[in-house]
């Protein structure tokens, strides 16, 4: 009769897994909303991006990623990736580079797509490289999300 004890144990193990799956399961966001948020909202996003890039820590701004993000990284990946993929793609990028300095110099809005750009310096294998950073956000699902990030 240990039969069903085993089933119960297995079920509990799988429930633990599912309990992690269900909250993080993907739900497709709507296309770009017609309405927009406030300046403070997207400026806050850019601040997080600035901090994250400066510290080389994607966790500081990964919550702002859109469902699909277009990305261009110098010496690294180039394409459109999901927010989950972005977490690891950027994580790998930061792992091999140490950012010495970064600041957004321009923050502007155009075609309802606020953007920010600036210059950064990072050190990779002892070589210092200067790159330009471009981040664009869109208002989706009542908040601003990062739709494009270029570090090139």
């Amino acid at each position, binding site marked *: 009769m240990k039969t069903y004890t*085993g089933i119960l*144990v*297995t*079920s509990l193990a799988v429930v633990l897994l599912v309990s992690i799956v*269900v909250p993080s399961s993907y739900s497709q966001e709507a296309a770009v909303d*017609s309405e927009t948020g406030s300046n403070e909202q997207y400026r806050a996003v850019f601040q997080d991006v600035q901090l994250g890039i400066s510290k080389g820590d994607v966790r500081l701004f990964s919550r702002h990623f859109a469902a699909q993000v277009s990305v261009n990284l110098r010496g690294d990946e180039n394409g459109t990736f*999901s927010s989950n*993929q972005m977490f690891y793609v950027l994580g790998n990028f930061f792992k091999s580079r140490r950012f010495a300095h970064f600041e957004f110099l321009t923050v*502007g809005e155009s075609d309802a797509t606020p953007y920010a750009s600036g210059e950064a310096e990072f050190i990779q*294998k002892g070589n210092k490289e200067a790159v330009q950073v471009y981040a664009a956000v869109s208002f989706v699902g009542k908040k601003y999300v990062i739709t494009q990030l270029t570090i090139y």
Partner: protein
Amino acid sequence: MPTLGSRIHSYVAFKGRSFASKIVPVVSALLLLSFLVEFLILRYYDRNWDLIVEQQAIDNLDRATTAFIGVQRETRRVAAEVALHPVILASLSESGGNRNEVFEAVSRIAREQNIGIEVYNTQAQLIAWDGSSEPSHQREIQIALAGQLASFVTRAQVFSQLFVVMPVRSQGAIIGAILVRRTTELNYPLSNKLIVSRGLAEQLTGDLGVEVEYNFSTNAAFRKDGRYISAPLIGIDSSKVGVVSVARPSRGAYLESIANTFHSWNAVLWIALLATACVTLGTRLATIQTVAARSLAITALIWVVRYALIWLDLPSTVVHISIFDPTYFASTFGNGLAKSIGDLFFTTVALFVNTVLVGRYILSKDNGTTPWWYPNRAVFRWFLVPVITTLVFLFLRGYAATVRSAVYDSTLRFNDPTVIVPSFELAVMVMSLFLLSFCLIGVVVALASFAYALLAGMSSAAKASSWFVVVAAFVLTAGVIEIIPSDPLVPLLYRLLFAAGILCLAYYLHRQRIHQRHIATVRNLLLVFGLSAVFFFPVLDGNVHDRDRDKIEAYALDVIRPADSWLKFILDEALEGFRTGETVNTLTSGDEDDFDRIAFDHWAGSTAAREGYSCVFAVSDSSGYEVSRFMIGGQATLEMYHRLLNDRPKAKLIVVERNGTGVNAIRVYSGSIPITGDDGRVLGYGHVVIAAGQQALFRGESPSVLRNESEETIEAFYRPIAVSEFHDNRLLTSNNMLLPIGYEVPAAARTQLADPQRASVWVDERIDNTSYETFYIKRPTALGEIVSLSVPQLGFVWHLISILKMFVYYAIVVLVFGIGIFIVQWLRGYRYEFTFRDKLLGALLVTALLPLIVLATTGRQLAKDRMLETIGKRLEQETATLAVSIGQRLQGEEGIVQEALSRYVIDQLANEAGADFNLYVGNQLQASSRPELYEVGILDKRLSGLAFSNTMLKGKRFYLQTETIGTYQYVVGYRTLVSGDGRIAGIVAVPTLYRFEEVEAELSRRNALIFGLYAVVFIIIVVIATTFANRIAAPIHKLTLATKRVARGDANVTVGIRKADGEIGELIRSFEMMTHELARSREELVHVERELAWKEMAKQVAHEIKNPLTPMKLSMQHLRQTYKDKVANFEQVFDEVSRTMIEQIDTLSRIAGEFARFARMPKANLESVDVNAALRESVSLFDQDVNVKFEMLLDDHLPSVRSDKEELRRAFINILRNGIQAMNNSGKMTIRSWQEGGNVCLAFSDHGIGMSDEVKAKLFQPNFSTKTDGMGLGLAITKKSIDDMGGSIAIQSTVGEGTTVTIVLPVEHRQNSPRS
């Protein structure tokens, strides 16, 4: 005999302790040593860095220099081979040779060696060639003709090339010269289908971990920057050909590279340590008796190991393969459980192993008893049922979420009809999802069975009413989930079908359990796999379709609203790029040779180049005169550029203009920037123009050939996307030629878009017999303007091909698992015997599939040939059209091709012909409708050697040639332009290079269709072959089963086939007659035997009874006589006589009892019996009382048998007692158990006196005994018991050595309870 499997198991299980105790400390010590060595090395390098860095830099420089010398040596070797080629020697000799043959030989060598070759005669005239024509090397050729060897490097736009020139000698005399060219360096970070080579510097930078730079310019100098050390590069003629510079390694990077090396080595040690610990711990955990505890422990172990691997970043640290690349797939689920395809695969494998192991524990220990925790109160049981059904649908949602994540969090192309063989990444992903499906079905079916058990109780009897309640609970839960706000991710219909499938399987397995059949069979396993596939396809298909629509919506947003800020950023970045010191130096130096390169250099390194925008990059001097320009893409940029040239701004200036209207509108972003020297003087101006818009789709002007490879473009979508523009619901323009003029937005879309709150809508529409799914979206900035993006609907064939492909992938997965199971079973001693049906099926499949494979291969080649033929015909037609058009433009005037064909005319001709073209005069390019690839040196301006040979020398009017650039093969059609007097005025060429996406897609479509067709035929063949094999083999199979029954003693057998004819029918009829005759004979024999048995029994009974009767009679006579004689001690005699009488009566009673036991066996109480336990119990009766040592070699994984436990124990005791007595109560007795196929085998070996053959022959006869006491019935009873259990008993014995009694019992699921 213990099998190989059991030996391995016993080795791991029993010797695990010593194994672990030896290996684990060794690996741990190695790990600690590795850490220590790493620490010491890093400290040493850190402290002595100043000394080490110089030596390291010199070593690196040496390697960089040696690498160049190696390339040079190899090129020289090839040049020497070419110079000795007989065809070339013949052509250059005085007798002369066939020039066409020289072209063919040169072309062949050049392709094989991936080089360029030129052959010159003694007058330095070019005889034959293959490869690029630029630059001209007349001076070097003269050197070679003078008998010298020389090498040099030239830097073209994109590539730097190494040249080796060599004289060709014949009989000591110089008869010509050879020039061989090899690409050594890629000057720009371009990488696409056309440019795949990696330069030397890039290769070495990757290998050495420091920057390596080759400078091949004529005035190359050592780098003055202290970070670098430089060395000259010397050619084979000892002249300097360039300079190589290598950066000194940085302390941090160098130490990091050492640490990384140790990290990889440590990772291997960690894996070894983890694997050893896992095997040891797993083996011990498997011995835990309680199923729950064992399941929990194994589950914990599996997931601890899995997370340990994630924590250690293994195996991705050691194995650098693409499946660990997050750009293919990554999910943040479970803190790294699915951070790549590889990790997802390992996670699903862990889940699979977990499910299988726990399932195995459950099934092996299932004895139908009620567990202690089973709720006694019905109310609790009823409460648990909805909890379980909710759990089932939660699992389903989790599964759907995983499949969705696999589609959305990846760049993999699932269900792409143009892909036949899946990529490695896709194959691993699909395999992972299949495993997940399997686990889902396995767990959910177990839960459904549990829900039933809660309602019906733990007895195995079927209760239909309980199943009805379970079905109702499933249906109800499936419906209730629909009204819960959270997205269930699968539709209601799917959930209901899923529930139906699960319940059917659970019921089927339950029925098998009722009929006491084994559940863990291969058939049931395949059933679960099958059901997994059935439920997997729709979820994947639905998600792929949803993702396609999402992508099209994203493309639509790009179309209606170009990313303004992004393009301004690109423009800004491009303009800022002109302010580099290099540009300033070039402009200051005034070297006009370098001026040409400035624009291309800047473009090649810009984001605009990487993104593939139509653009112009230019530099003008301080007075506005253009000094350098590079243009790629449409005319819109050029027009804007001419206006821009007049700008001489004091600061950066950016202008955005919109040209055209609607979908044809182009936004042109232009800007200029002053380039100033160190003294602030303006040296010149940088100008950039970038155009963005949908126009590229309509004119085919997208410079995608130069774009870095990316699949995220509207053109790269696997279904052709048509873009259309509507104004006031009427069609303005479209690139879908099927849309008629005046076409209107469908009513369904119109109605919905009339709602001001609604911006877009999906509509299914049918145009000219083609079904489309179309996305209509309102342009937000222009009232009444609607843009639509249409894709052809995925029709039946598409779905069929997708499913067939999945079927093939799935079959491969199942096959892999099947082989795995086969190997495991083989290790465990199970040998699969191929039946007649298996062999027949195999033969039929081989016979049918071999021709199919040949046909498929031939068919694929034919399709490819046909495709090339079609392309050839099209090129023939297009070149003919162009030849006529050009001829008309020239109006018969020869020799003025270049003057007559202005840029405007070229574009016009290309538009008329609908194809891009090149025009050659002699062997040089004179005009091209797509000049950019020629201008930057990616394509050769000189006519291909073979084309020249075939058209100019052989005089062919049309010649088709397959050419290669990078990884891309394309076809070029060449047609001669013949002047009025019959001479060849030029050659027009149409390459398919610019249409390679279209050609590739067409070829893929044809391949996919062929694959689909043959896959259908394959499935039909498998079905037919299986049906035939079953039908043909069925009578043989039934006959075999009947024969087995006869062999077991059942003569009343019929085969059960009435319609069999031919030899098989005759065989069956003969067999049935034979069995009938056998049954009759047996009845007679039984009758005779029974009579004989009665007689024997009567004789035996009489004999046995007579023995005690004699003393009884004598005693009674003695008593009577004593009484008559009035003997004084009569009382004493009476007492003695009566005691004797009682003793003899007891003897009679014992005799009667023994006979009764032999004649009347009690009714068997069949149950599942653990044979090992019964053996241990039986042995325990003796091990205290006798001086015999019992050696127990028992297989712990022995399956149970179905028998009467007491009867089995009595049999064991009987054998043990006989053995002990044979050894006179002292010695060693060995008892072994093992599994052999479907049987449990037992062996009892003693070292007693043994038996002769004569004794052995009578051992199982009743009344036979070698002992003085007993009736001689013990072994007869034992044999009868074992026979009744469906088993057998055998005795091997040698006099003086000992005896072995072997018992074979069928395992539980094969036993047919003979006495029940």
